[in-house]
């Protein structure tokens, strides 16, 4: 029980720290916006600069590097192991976090070997190309609501273009260049194989990735992510907000599966396939490999951020109506900080979910990957578009869509529970079968 209380304290401390951190982010944005005004520039320039520094460099990078440790420790917990705990600081392994520094040190000091027959420019460019687009994706993720801090109206989002989701699609499809080029430029047939696999897999999943969000766009009538998040604060069923998961369960599942395939992690890690071909980064070493390694974890964080914003109500506490929640706070700064902390907490849970799925499922065979995409996800997303369109047309208040979503969730729950009940005598039959051999 000692550990239980310890973990409860740690989680509480992390949540408190998140609130403090978000308050710091808001203050930085407000201060830089004020500075921009004094220099004669629009305040959004200063806020954007502050958000680039705080959200992208601090939040995303810290989360991504912590995830490299979390992958070890969490996978260990899922598999009844202990996980990395040999590096100790003052006699304590502190959750394996020192491994982060050890990894970075190792990556930076490793010998950087390169194949002599590489394509020089593209070989150097590929890690950057695979890292930058995913990293830049986070620019449109709205982490916190717009509040007035230090006399400036600032939001925790680097920028909110009108084409928000289209920007996401554009950059998400750019990241395939890094992978494909890495495979091709290293002039290695296994690397090329990985690159080709990555290209075909990611191009396939682009389709269902795009189509799965059409339902969300129809339901919220906007491409801007901050407006989508605001729309999710409206009550739909009782106190539960009109969150994307409620209105679009099928859309969420298709989007999550497709985006998961885009991150190239197990069960979709065919481009990497370390047991068959080492994959597109087979010729990379040192920090160039490190960038690709880190890009994978950055993608997890970005995906978690996008899913939070699109499907899990963003910064809204889902079960409390947004207006009521807002009324609890006197200071706008505190409201913003708590909201942003809610967003980051949801992101962390979704990161955990992605790691859990990665350790749950074995790698798909290549034909299974394509079958899943073209024969299951694509028809499902098309059906979802049709149903959503019909529901929105019939009932613009989204009530009908919410009830359809509830029905879908109930059907899935029923199927899952039914799967849990093995037919009577099944276990004995299996035992008899085993005894025959």
């Amino acid at each position: 029980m000692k550990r239980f209380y310890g973990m409860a304290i740690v989680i509480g401390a992390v949540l408190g720290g998140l609130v403090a951190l978000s308050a710091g982010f808001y203050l930085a944005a407000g201060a830089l916006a004020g500075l921009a005004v004094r220099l004669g520039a629009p305040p959004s320039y200063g806020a954007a600069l502050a958000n680039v520094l705080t959200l992208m460099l601090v939040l995303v990078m810290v989360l991504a590097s912590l995830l490299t440790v979390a992958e070890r420790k969490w996978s260990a917990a899922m598999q009844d192991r202990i996980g990395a705990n040999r590096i100790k600081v003052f006699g304590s392994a502190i959750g394996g976090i020192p491994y982060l520094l050890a990894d970075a040190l190792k990556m930076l000091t490793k010998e950087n070997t390169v194949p002599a027959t590489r394509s020089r420019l593209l070989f150097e460019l590929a890690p950057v190309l695979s890292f930058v687009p995913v990293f830049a994706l986070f620019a449109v993720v709205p982490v916190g609501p717009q509040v007035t801090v230090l006399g400036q109206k600032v939001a925790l989002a680097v920028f909110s273009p009108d084409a928000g989701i289209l920007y996401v699609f554009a950059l998400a499809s750019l990241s395939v260049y890094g992978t494909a080029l890495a495979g091709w430029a290293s002039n290695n047939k296994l690397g090329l194989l990985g690159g080709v696999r990555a290209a075909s897999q990611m191009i396939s999943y682009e389709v269902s990735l795009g189509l799965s969000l059409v339902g969300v766009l129809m339901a919220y009538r906007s491409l801007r992510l901050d407006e989508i998040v605001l729309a999710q604060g409206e009550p739909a069923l009782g106190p539960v907000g009109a969150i994307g998961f409620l209105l679009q369960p099928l859309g969420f599942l298709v989007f999550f599966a497709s985006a998961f395939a885009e991150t190239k992690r197990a069960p979709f890690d065919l481009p990497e396939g370390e047991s068959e071909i080492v994959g597109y980064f087979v010729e990379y070493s040192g920090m160039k490999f490190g960038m690709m390694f880190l890009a994978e974890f950055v993608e997890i964080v970005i995906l978690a951020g996008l899913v939070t914003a699109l499907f899990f109500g963003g910064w809204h506490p889902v079960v409390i109506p947004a207006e009521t929640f807002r009324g609890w706070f006197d200071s706008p700064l505190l409201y913003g900080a708590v909201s942003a902390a809610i967003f980051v907490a949801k992101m962390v849970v979704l990161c955990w979910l992605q790691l859990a799925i990665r350790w749950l499922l074995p790698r798909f065979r290549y034909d299974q990957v394509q079958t899943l995409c073209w024969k299951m996800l694509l028809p499902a997303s098309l059906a979802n578009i049709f149903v959503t369109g019909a529901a929105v047309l019939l009932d613009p208040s989204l009530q009908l869509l919410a009830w359809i979503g509830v029905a879908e969730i109930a059907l899935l729950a029923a199927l899952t529970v039914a799967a849990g009940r093995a037919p009577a005598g099944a276990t004995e039959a299996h035992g008899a079968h085993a005894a025959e051999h």
Partner: protein
Amino acid sequence: MPYSLPQDKPVTFRERIYLPEVLRGLAVVTRHFLRNAFFSRDANPDVLARDRRLNLVTTVQYPEERVAYPPGYRGLHRLVPREDGKPRCVACYMCATACPAQCIYIEAAEVPGDPIEKYPFRFVIDELRCVVCGFCVEACPKDAIRMDTGEHAPATYTRAEQVWDEKRLLRGPAVSYQSDPWLEREAPGVPAADLARMRGAARPFPGNAADEYSQTPGFSPRALAAEAKPRAR
């Protein structure tokens, strides 16, 4: 034995949409994660006896926690001392002859002032060569070499450190038997006081190999069986 895969059952709709099974798997993973992440591990080195009601981890953190070796485990050799601190060994070369790896080197010398007895002037075992078969222990007529230290070869930085000479090998509890010739015939090489002490401690020579006195302290097949019984249940 030939192994044949059981035929797959016809795939139902539930299995074909794949997701319910994934969710069920996720539930299993989550359960394991929560139990292991939020509750402390029982660090009992006897893994089977661990309390796994909450935390399911079976890892033994090796250098800090060690699983006890089973009784009868053949560890590093030792030369069994007598009560006066000298080895029981009489340098008969039986162990060196029996050794299939030829890792034992003995130089015999005469005990000063005694026309009969020999002692090992040098007794060297190359632990890197040893195959840990235990034949030397079986061969010894004087119960002078045993492998009951419960240590396995410790890691060293040089090969030379793995060559154990008589000074390092001579350790552990002393043993004397009533049938020991130096006790029976009042060996002139042993001071009278030591002789009296050894006589006092001497026991009858063990009739069978399972006798507790002749083996690792605490070893007995009967005790072992009694100990294993509740665990098997």
